C-alpha cells in the first residue's frame, strides 16, 4: 500500500519553519469555526466534541469531551484552560508542527474550548526548547488580539476571552499535566497529588481543563465540520487523524498526518519514513514516545490506533515512533532512556527519585561490562518496585514511564543484556573502551 497522507490539521500549512499569518488563515476559512461556535451554546460545543469521540492526543487517550464535563458548576471560581504544548517526550515532535506553522488553528480551538468549559483565560504552555513555536504563537496571539478575535469582545460577541503563551524552561516533568500547572503558577514543576483532579482544583486552585495541543487544534475542525464529518477519518477506537513523528534509524525522519485506521506501524516506518537506513533491517520500534513499551520487528503490522497498538503490546501514546535498526544494542538504547528518566525525575516520590537512579546504575553496569548475571533479574525486580503500567506507585507517570521500556526491553531483548553480561559489556561500550583508557564501570554519575 502506498503511503497515504491526509491533510486536515496541516492543510494549507506553510513549510516547516514558516507561520501561517492571520490573513492567510482567514483566507482559508480560519475563525469561521469560532464564529459558528459563538452562535452555539457551551453545551452544544461540548456535545459536538463528545460526539466526535476525540481522544486526548497527549498520550493517555482520554475522551476530551467527557473530560470537559468534569468542570464543576457554580463554584464562584474562574475556570481555566491549559493547553499542553510542552511536548517533552523523547521521540515526539508533532505538536510543534501545529504551534509553529498553524498557530491560529490552535488559538481558535482554544477559544472554542474556553467557550465550552466556561473559561475566559487559556494558557498555552510551550516547551522551552521550541523558541520558534513560542515566537510564532505569540505573534499569532498579537494578531488575534489586534483583530478583535481575542480580548474583551471576541468577534463582537461581547464575550471576553484571552490566550497567554507561557514558555517552559526545559524540564520533562512540566509536560506532565499537573507539573505543568505548578510551572504555570511560577512554582517548581512538581506534579500534584490527585484527588483533587485539575478539573476541580487546577490552576490557582480553580477548575482547570488540560488538553494537548493537537486535541485543541482538532476542536476547531470538529466545530467547523461537525462531529460526523470529523469522524470520517479514523475508526471508532481512534476517530480523527493523527499527527505522527518518525525518527531514529530511518531513511527520512519525518512527521506525517495519517488516518490511524488506515495506516500501520509498518507503513509509517517503510513508506512514510522511507524504511530502515543504510540498508539495514528493523530491530525494534517504540511507537508512542520513549515511555511506552518497545515492540520487536515482528509486531509492526498493526494499524496506528490506540486499541491496535495496545493489543500489540505497547501504546500509541503521543505518536513518537522511534525506530532502531539491527545493529542497535538494546542495552545501549535502554541506558540512553534510563539516563533521561533519572535526570528528569522531579524527585518528589520516593520510588521514582531513588529508583530511576538505581535503574540507570544497573543498566550502566551491564552496559559497561561490570554486570553480574544476577543483575538482569535485579533490574527486572527493581523496575517492579519503582512502577509499571498503571502501577500507581507514584504521584505521576514518570516512574511508570521509566519502567515500561525497562520491562519491555528485558522481555523482548533479554539476549542483548545477557550478551553484555557475558561478553564484558555492550558493543558500544567496548568500541569506545578500545579507543580510550578503561573507565571505572561502577556506574556512579
Amino acid at each position, binding site marked *: 500500500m502506498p503511503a497515504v497522507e491526509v491533510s486536515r490539521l496541516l492543510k494549507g500549512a506553510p513549510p516547516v519553519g514558516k507561520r501561517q499569518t492571520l490573513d492567510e488563515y482567514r483566507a482559508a476559512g480560519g475563525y469561521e469555526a469560532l464564529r459558528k461556535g459563538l452562535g452555539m451554546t457551551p453545551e452544544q460545543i461540548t456535545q459536538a466534541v463528545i460526539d466526535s469521540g476525540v481522544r486526548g492526543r497527549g498520550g493517555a487517550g482520554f475522551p476530551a469531551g467527557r473530560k470537559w464535563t468534569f468542570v464543576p458548576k457554580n463554584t464562584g471560581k474562574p475556570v481555566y484552560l491549559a493547553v499542553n504544548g510542552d511536548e517533552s517526550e523523547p521521540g515526539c515532535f508533532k505538536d510543534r508542527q501545529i504551534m509553529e506553522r498553524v498557530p491560529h488553528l490552535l488559538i481558535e480551538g482554544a477559544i472554542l474550548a474556553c467557550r465550552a468549559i466556561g473559561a475566559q483565560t487559556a494558557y498555552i504552555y510551550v516547551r522551552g526548547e521550541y523558541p520558534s513555536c513560542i515566537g510564532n504563537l505569540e505573534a499569532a496571539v498579537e494578531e488575534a488580539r489586534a483583530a478583535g478575535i481575542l480580548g474583551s469582545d471576541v468577534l463582537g460577541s461581547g464575550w471576553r476571552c484571552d490566550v497567554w503563551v507561557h514558555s517552559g524552561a526545559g*524540564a520533562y*516533568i512540566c509536560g506532565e499535566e499537573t507539573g505543568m500547572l505548578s510551572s504555570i503558577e511560577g512554582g*517548581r514543576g512538581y506534579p500534584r*497529588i490527585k*484527588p483533587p483532579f485539575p478539573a476541580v482544583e487546577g490552576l490557582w486552585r480553580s477548575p482547570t481543563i488540560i488538553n494537548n495541543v493537537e486535541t485543541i487544534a482538532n476542536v476547531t475542525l470538529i466545530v467547523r465540520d461537525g462531529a460526523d464529518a470529523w469522524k470520517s477519518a479514523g475508526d471508532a477506537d481512534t476517530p480523527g487523524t493523527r499527527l505522527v513523528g518518525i525518527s531514529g534509524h530511518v531513511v527520512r525522519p519525518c512527521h506525517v498526518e495519517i488516518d490511524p485506521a488506515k495506516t500501520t506501524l509498518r507503513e509509517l516506518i517503510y513508506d512514510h519514513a522511507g524504511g530502515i537506513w543504510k540498508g539495514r533491517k528493523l530491530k525494534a520500534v517504540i511507537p508512542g514516545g520513549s515511555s511506552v513499551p518497545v515492540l520487536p520487528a515482528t509486531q509492526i503490522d498493526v494499524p496506528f490506533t490506540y486499541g491496535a497498538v495496545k493489543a500489540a503490546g505497547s501504546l500509541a501514546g503521543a505518536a513518537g515512533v522511534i525506530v532502531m535498526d539491527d545493529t542497535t544494542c538494546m542495552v545501549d538504547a535502554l541506558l540512553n532512556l534510563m539516563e533521561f528518566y*533519572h*535526570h*528528569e*525525575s*522531579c*524527585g*518528589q*516520590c*520516593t*520510588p*521514582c*527519585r*531513588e*529508583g*530511576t*537512579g*538505581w535503574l540507570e*546504575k544497573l543498566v550502566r*553496569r551491564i552496559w559497561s561490562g561490570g554486570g553480574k548475571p544476577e543483575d538482569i533479574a*535485579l533490574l527486572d*525486580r*527493581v523496575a517492579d*518496585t*519503582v512502577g509499571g503500567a*498503571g*502501577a*500507581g*506507585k*507514584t*504521584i505521576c507517570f514518570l516512574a511508570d514511564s521509566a519502567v515500561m521500556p525497562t520491562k519491555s526491553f528485558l522481555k523482548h531483548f533479554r539476549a542483548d543484556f545477557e550478551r553484555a553480561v557475558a561478553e564484558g559489556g555492550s558493543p558500544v561500550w567496548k568500541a569506545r573502551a578500545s579507543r580510550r583508557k578503561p573507565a571505572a564501570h*561502577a*556506574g*556512579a554519575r
Partner: protein
Amino acid sequence: MPKLTIDGKTMEVPKGATVIQAARAAGIEIPHYCWHPGLSVAGNCRICLVEVEGMPTLQIACNLLCADNMVVRTQSEKAKGGRADVMELLLINHPLDCPICDQAGECKLQEYSFRIGKDRSSFDFPKVHKPKHVRFSDKVMFDAERCILCTRCVRFCAEVAKRDELDIVNRGDRNEIAVKRGGELENDYQMNVIDVCPVGALTSMDFRFKSRVWFLENAKSVCSGCSRGCNVTVGSRWNRVLRVIPRENPHVNQWWMCDAGRFTYKGNDADTRLGAPMIRKNGALAECSWDEALDAAAKGLRDAGADLLALVSGRLTNEEMWLAKDVLAHLGTPHRDVKPRAFAKDDFLRTGDGNPNSRGAALLGIAPGTGGSGLTSLGSRAFRGAALFGEDLDDRPEALEALSKCGFVLVVGSHETETSRRAAHVVLPGVTPFEKDGTYVNVSGRVQRLARSVIAPGEAWPDWKILGALRARLTGAPAPRTPADAFAEMCAASPAFSGLPWNGLGEHGADARTPEPAGAAR
C-alpha cells in the same frame, strides 16, 4: 459519615476523613513520613501504602478519602511488600550513619526499617553524595544526605509559620532542601522544622551531640515563656535540662512552639543561681539556715503588716499565688501586684505577655485590693516593707531605687539579681519552672500542669514550700506538704478552680471553671 473497615475494625468517620486519619483514630498506626496531622497532604514518601478491596493497586492512606463500605487492609502481604519496597528505596542513598546521627533513637527511618523494612539491601553502588552540615541558621543544621525529601519542613514554613523560606532545588535523587535565595531561616518558629523532620536531616544547633536521646529523662510540662502555655516535653540528663520540645495539645499549641520558648531553660544552670537563704547583716548578705531566714522573713512581713507592698510574679504557679495571697490577706495588706512582662506578640502562638500565669493571677485576684497600691506607686509612696515573690526589679532602676529605701525587703527568687543584691534584707532561694510541680492558667483559661524535670541546686526550696512555711509561721495554718495539697486547698476555696482534680488535669489540662476573672481583676 462514611462507615469503613480497617484491618477488620469497622468504624464511622467524619466526612472528608482520610484513611490514615481514620486508622489513627482507631489506634492503627499506618507508617508515614511526609504526612503530618498539622500539615497539608504531600503524598510523596509513599510509605503509607494500604490495600483496598476492589482497587487494583496499593493506595496511599494519607490521600485516600474514607468511603462507605471501604475495606482497607494495612497488614496484607501486598501492603507490607509495597511498604518494604519503599523502605528499601529510601535507604539506598541514605548514609546509614545512625551511630553518629543525632536523630538516632527517635528516627522514623530507624523505626520503620526495624518494623517493616528488609534485613538487607540489593543496592551495591556508591551512594549519591550531597552537602552535609549546612547551616540553615544559628538554630538549625541540615544534612542533605540524610534527608528523605518529605517536604514537611518546607510545608511547615509556608503553611504554619507563614514564611515561605524553604524549597527544594535540583531534581531527582540530586534534590536538596534549601533556604530560598541562599538566605537563612529567619522565622520565629523555625525550630519546629527539626521536630517535624522524621529523620536526622534537620537537627538543633543547640541540642545536637549533647546526649543520645534515649538517655534523656522526659517530663511533660508547659512552657513558661509566655501566657500561651505551649505544652512541652522537657528532656534532661545529669540533672540538667538539655532541650525543650513541643508536645501536642489540640487545645493550646497543636504540635508547635516558638523558638524563644525552647530557650527558656537557658540560665537554669547559671552561676547566679541562689543555693542558700541569706540575711543582710552589717550591710552584707550572709548565708544562714532556713529556720533563721524564715523567722526573719516572717518578722519583717508581720512588722510591715498592712503597709507591705507585695509583688507576686506572674511566673509563679497558681498554688504559689494562692498561698501568697493567703499570707497577704492575713497581713491585711491590699498592696499586691504582678509585674507585667510585655514583648512583641504575633498572630500565632506568641501572646506578647511574658508572664505564663497572668490569667491565674487574675483569677486569684493578685492585683491591688480596695485602697491598695501597686508596682507603679513605688517611688511616689513609701512602704514599710516589701516582698518580692519570684520577682525582681532589675529592669526598672527607679522602682528598684525606691525599693531599696524600704525598711524591710524580702526577696524570694531562683537567681541572684541586682534587686536581691541591693535591696533585700532576707533572700529565700526559690526554684525555676523546671524544678517544681504546679499549675498555670494560660491565656485562654486552660489550667495546665507544670512538671518538675530537674532538682534545684543547693538548699533551694520550691516557692510553694517557702510560701507554705511563711504562712505557717504567720498564721499557724499547716504548710502544704506537696503542691497537690496546695492545689486541693486552692480548689476548695477558689471558684475558678472549684472541683478540678490535680491528677485529672492529665496531659492536656482542663478549662478553668470561671475562665474570666470575677470582679477582683484590674
